[in-house]
């Protein structure tokens, strides 16, 4: 109980400092926010875990930058086979065909369902590419200790986190088509090697975003030091 009370008193004294208009960061005051429940803790007592929910406390995510770079690089490498190899191979009475991701979009477009073609185009081509580029931008800007458009970059990261999972769309389409279209002699659809690569891109880029600690944007720009 005593740790809770002492934490509360530190928080209260910190609160009185906030009265001044300048934005203060938790880390500059020797406080530590819990990543799970958001409660403030005293940084000195971080070994005990969060007083509210018991989660282990960390100043910042461990090795955030190097882990994020590693996942990002892996995702970028997988991006090449994901787009070059076919994700689907169909065999019909008319003959065999294989589709890359882009080919699937084109086929949808020609079939006249252009809203769907646009949806798949965004989910499987634009979003993964933008994710790779945006993550690179964020990581480079942290290394450069840049304070350029901090707010916009924070917003970009939120967008990235939200939109990443929707790229999995194509994998699910492949899964259903493969299972559904097995009409013995008439037609069958198989998954191609591109599907695995594409799934890996999506998972790896999600991991890259999760390993990244947004607070580093503000740390590296020097906004979280005590003035």
């Amino acid at each position, binding site marked *: 109980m005593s740790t809770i009370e002492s934490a509360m008193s530190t928080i209260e004294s910190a*609160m009185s400092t*906030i009265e001044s208009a300048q*934005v*203060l*960061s*938790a*880390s500059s*005051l020797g406080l530590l926010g819990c*990543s*799970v*429940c*958001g*409660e*403030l803790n005293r940084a000195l007592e971080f070994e005990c875990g969060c007083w*509210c*929910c*018991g989660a282990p406390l960390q100043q910042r995510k461990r090795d955030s930058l190097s882990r994020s770079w590693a996942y990002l690089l892996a995702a970028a490498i997988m991006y090449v086979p994901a787009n070059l190899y076919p994700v689907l191979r169909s065999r019909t009475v008319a003959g065999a065909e294989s589709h890359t991701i882009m080919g699937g979009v084109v086929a949808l477009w020609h*079939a006249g369902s252009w809203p769907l073609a646009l*949806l798949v185009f965004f989910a499987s081509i634009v979003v993964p590419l933008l994710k790779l580029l945006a993550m690179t931008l964020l990581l480079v800007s942290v290394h450069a200790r840049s304070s350029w458009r901090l*707010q916009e970059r*924070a*917003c970009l990261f*939120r967008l990235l*986190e939200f939109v*990443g*999972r*929707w790229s*999995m*769309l*194509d*994998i*699910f*389409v*492949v*899964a*259903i*088509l*493969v*299972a*559904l*279209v*097995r*009409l*013995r002699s*008439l*037609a069958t659809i198989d*998954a191609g090697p591109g*599907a695995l690569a594409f*799934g*890996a891109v999506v*998972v790896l880029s*999600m991991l890259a975003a*999760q390993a990244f600690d*947004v*607070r580093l*944007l*503000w*740390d590296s720009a020097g*906004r*979280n030091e005590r003035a």
Partner: protein
Amino acid sequence: MCRECDALQKVPSLSRGELLACCRCGAHLRDSHGERLHRVLPLTIAAGVCFVLANSWPIVSIEVAGNRASTSLLGAILALYEQGVPGVALIVLLTGFVAPAAQLVLLAYALSSLAAPHRLSGISRIVRLLQALRPWSMAEVFMLGALVSLVKLAGVARVIPSIGLWSLSAVIVLTAAAHAAFDVRGYWERARATQ
């Protein structure tokens, strides 16, 4: 404290329906929908029932020239595995089936532990796991995938959406509602108050 930029700020009292954003980076800090924790358990149970339904019936069927084929989510995973792409099967299994199911089970466990006289073991780990699972549970992405493939096939075959698809949409709505009502801070406040 803002979780995304570490800025400290005073939290004003919010009136109903207001949202609080960080004064520096604009991240969502808190909302004020009042006490909604009591809604989470019923929503979770309902979602669980629909989840079982969604996985025990096929999601879609197609009919071409008298041949009929249908698939469920687990059937799709099995088909991927049999066709020699176990990697893709694993991704689909984890994001489409295991993560949503685990989410519902853990949510139900965490909430029923509020009623227990003692704090159940590992509950804080479970709440953390729930947070971590959230981005990986992709029932709604799977749903959209199912719809896209239906439209793809609509040109060449007669497609029949079946019970699985309807239950899946119910799962998505109910899980989203349960998650919107589950707030970790409120949960721990409640846990401290009852134990």
